[in-house]
């Protein structure tokens, strides 16, 4: 029997929305209140670069229809922050003084862009790309800018670089590592991505860093760059995007008994160390099945999954989270790429690495195995069936019998069916009843 509860969700992005939908699948009785620091519209952060590029309008960002909360019978409190959580008193307090009592609480506060100390905050021309407000601010700054610098070689930075390039700006990407996307791919794949950037006319500087900015009339006019074998130099820049990764928004749990390290620590039910208080998304540390350790995977897909698991458990549907895997896909001119799990294993750690290079076709494939189990993958320009390999990783399938087939272009689910024996056949026969990835 479903009991009527007071459920509070802090955050209305992927994790919060995933939780709300999961709750309402099983529980239409409880009250659900979402508190959002942003506006009430449910939009997709992953699309902000499309909005920046101008290929999507504001309405194109919508992740759920405008009547979403009404259909979900949920109350949304937009434009306010939760300032404190009182676990014992089962209450949260918002910055406008509003107090919300809860029986179950989900902390899905997400993350915020890191800002290096030598980059001045709140300076005209300095931007991050996290929220729709950030994207609008950049758009309004486009007119006065001719030269843009993107600081950071992660996915947000790369997508921002392409968007600004599409807007006709001269774009330079500044990366401290020796190649871009170093958190998600290896040098082999990154070479193809950098080729794509450069072919488009985007400058990529590796092994260098922005050490400061020069201002003119309070606005950014140039950035100071050092490293890369040459002496410090200044380069004109009227628009600087800082994309150096994100930090979990976990201030809320400081001073409470909710344990946290890099993020808020969660168990296999997405519950924090306190009963009835859950965490999901960019703010949550979960068990990473590829790394085999606790980690934050600040990714849309992971947030949706974790939100769903948290929501199910909050609605009294006991559901275990098998853990997360860091996973990314991208579509740049001449590069389609998917990667997940461990892509650059430590040499001594007993990993096996299979690599296939076909430069003429722009194809690069890399598979990382440990104990005959898939632990990581990079695919460039032959990405179909990546999900089949991800499923093998998640299910910890022993691939000793068909290792040689895994990087073959003809590899497909049929390979798994053919090699997997009775167990795999039964999975297929049961189909949707059991089909899950991770």
């Amino acid at each position: 029997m479903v009991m009527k509860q007071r459920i509070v969700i802090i955050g209305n992005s992927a994790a919060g929305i995933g939780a709300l939908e999961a709750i309402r699948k099983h529980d239409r009785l409880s009250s659900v209140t979402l508190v959002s620091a942003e506006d009430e519209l449910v939009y997709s952060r992953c699309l902000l670069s499309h909005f920046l590029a101008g290929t999507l309008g504001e309405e194109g960002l919508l992740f759920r229809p405008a009547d979403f909360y009404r259909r979900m019978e949920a109350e949304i409190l937009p434009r306010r922050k939760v300032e404190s959580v009182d676990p014992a008193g089962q209450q949260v307090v918002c910055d406008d003084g509003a107090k919300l009592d809860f029986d179950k609480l989900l902390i899905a506060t997400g993350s915020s862009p890191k800002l290096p100390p030598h980059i001045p905050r709140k300076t005209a021309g300095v931007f991050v790309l996290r929220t729709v407000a950030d994207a609008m601010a950049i758009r309004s700054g486009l007119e006065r800018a001719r030269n843009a610098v993107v600081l950071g070689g992660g996915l947000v930075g790369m997508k921002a670089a392409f968007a600004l390039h599409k807007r006709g700006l001269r774009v330079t990407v500044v990366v401290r590592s020796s190649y871009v996307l170093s958190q998600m791919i290896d040098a082999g794949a990154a070479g193809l991505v950098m080729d794509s950037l450069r072919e488009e006319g985007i400058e990529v500087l590796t092994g260098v860093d922005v050490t400061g900015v020069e201002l003119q009339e309070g606005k950014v006019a140039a950035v100071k760059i050092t490293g890369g074998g040459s002496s410090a130099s200044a380069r004109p820049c009227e628009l600087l995007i800082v994309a150096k990764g994100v930090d979990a928004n976990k201030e809320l749990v400081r001073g409470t008994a909710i344990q946290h390290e890099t993020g808020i620590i969660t168990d296999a039910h997405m519950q924090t160390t306190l009963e009835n208080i859950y965490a999901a998304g960019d703010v949550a540390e979960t068990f990473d099945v590829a790394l085999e350790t606790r980690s934050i995977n600040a990714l849309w897909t992971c947030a949706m999954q974790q939100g769903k698991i948290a929501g199910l458990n909050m609605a009294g549907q006991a559901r275990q989270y098998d853990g997360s895997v860091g996973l990314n896909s991208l579509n740049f001119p001449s590069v389609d790429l998917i990667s997940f799990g461990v892509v650059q294993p430590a040499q001594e750690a007993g990993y096996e690495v299979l690599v296939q290079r076909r430069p003429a076709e722009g194809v690069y494939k890399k598979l990382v195995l440990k104990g005959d189990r898939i632990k990581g993958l990079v695919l460039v320009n032959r990405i179909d069936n990546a999900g089949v390999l991800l499923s093998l990783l998640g299910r910890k399938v022993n691939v000793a019998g068909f290792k040689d087939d895994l990087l073959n272009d003809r590899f497909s689910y049929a390979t798994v069916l053919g090699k997997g024996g009775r167990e795999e056949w039964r999975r297929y026969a049961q189909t949707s009843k059991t089909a899950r990835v991770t």
Partner: protein
Amino acid sequence: MKEVFCLVERCLGCRSCEIACAVEHSRAKELTAAVKEEPRPAYRVRVSCVDERGRKIRLRSVAIQCRQCDEPACAEACIVGGIVKDETDGVVRFDQARCVGCWSCVMVCPYGAIVRVSGQGIAVKCDRCAGRETPACVEACPVRALVFIEPEEFAALGHEAENCHYRE
């Protein structure tokens, strides 16, 4: 709810299902006209042939399309929110018009059933032939390897197939 299944012991790998799927998803819905259409109509079922040497199952070919999962991984991965499980008929709906070609669904589909349409930069998947009683692929299969039946019914058939195709 009924699902599309492939009886592997019957599948000849003739790819009639692929053609029927492409025709069904063309504007003309007729083969001779469909082949001339631009962009070329995409098929959402894929026949994969497997080298049977050293296999446990004497599996030669199998037609794979979307399994319409109960909790679709693609729906959780789609960054535009364009993939939704329709609880009324069990079909996982894919809003093609909103697809931005990010390949998140390709990244997570455990069956490799999402198809990228080359040249258009979007993905498509089986919609189980909206408006049709029996999906086109099932209707077109000349050896009735593709069936549209309840999972329970298939499980019964499947175990039979499993046994006759095991060498061990």
